[in-house]
């Protein structure tokens, strides 16, 4: 219990455990870790609501069908795992603007959130292009 409620684990130890988790996952479920395909499936899911015909007509959404699969649950599980870990370690903290950002660019939320949003568009376009 004491280890689980500690706020900080060595990145080497946690990383090595994550490596073991990956090996176990491949052995048990045949699944390697990934996240960005889930964003394609989810984007298709959302776009379907507004423009179902458009989604059906795009080759990329036909290839990567909007659905909930192993990876989708893996990514969602990541949120729960982080919530559990931060609660156990009394490390959960409502943080609208990251400390490092605040020291450099100030506490303005709109500025930070807009940057994160626009950066997210660029990041995901690059990730999908690179195949990750």
């Amino acid at each position: 219990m004491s280890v689980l409620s500690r706020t900080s684990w060595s990145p080497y130890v946690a990383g090595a455990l994550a490596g073991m988790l990956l090996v176990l996952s491949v052995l048990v479920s045949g699944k390697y870790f990934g996240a960005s395909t889930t964003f394609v499936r989810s984007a298709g899911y959302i776009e379907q609501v507004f423009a179902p015909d458009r989604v059906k007509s795009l080759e990329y959404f036909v290839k990567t069908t909007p659905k909930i699969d192993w990876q989708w649950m893996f990514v969602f599980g990541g949120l729960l795992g982080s919530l559990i870990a931060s609660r156990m370690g009394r490390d959960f903290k409502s943080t609208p603007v990251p400390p490092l950002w605040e020291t450099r660019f100030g506490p303005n939320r709109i500025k930070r959130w807009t940057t994160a949003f626009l950066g997210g568009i660029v990041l995901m376009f690059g990730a999908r292009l690179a195949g990750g």
Partner: protein
Amino acid sequence: MNILLYGLVTGILFGFLMQKAHVIRYDKQLGALMLKDFTIVKFMISSVIVSMIGIYLLSDLGYIKLDIKSASLGANLIGGLIFGVGWGFVGYCPATAVAAVGEGRWDATFGLAGMLVGAAVYAEAFPLLKESVLAWGNMGKITLHGILGINHWIVIAVLTALFTGMFAWFEKRNL
């Protein structure tokens, strides 16, 4: 149904480890990009060493099959550069952005919204990219040991030694 449950449990454990290692923090991700704090690199490379050994061991024993991705110079290089620019602005990569919300980092939700838009934009651009960037320098499913024509355990041993040396250097420099 079972496979979805496996995904959820694996994700919970992975998210737990990422939170404890502090890698889902904007400050740590930017710290690595500014070459000042290599926490996320320590986490990633430790994971690579262990899984590289484990995966090849199980593959040699015939328990699992490898899933090697195709290398495409155009897609990997240009996509990687674009990803890097976006990453510098968001401060979270896709998986860490989701996990960051779990420890209360609300700015990550806006990053996630942007990522969904980015995926939709990519779907629109895909037909054009398929004929251009994605076709440039496609080298198929290559591996380091395949190119060098040596046993994979030599590559694993050399990489493990290099990574361990890098860790020692990080610790010496307090990075």
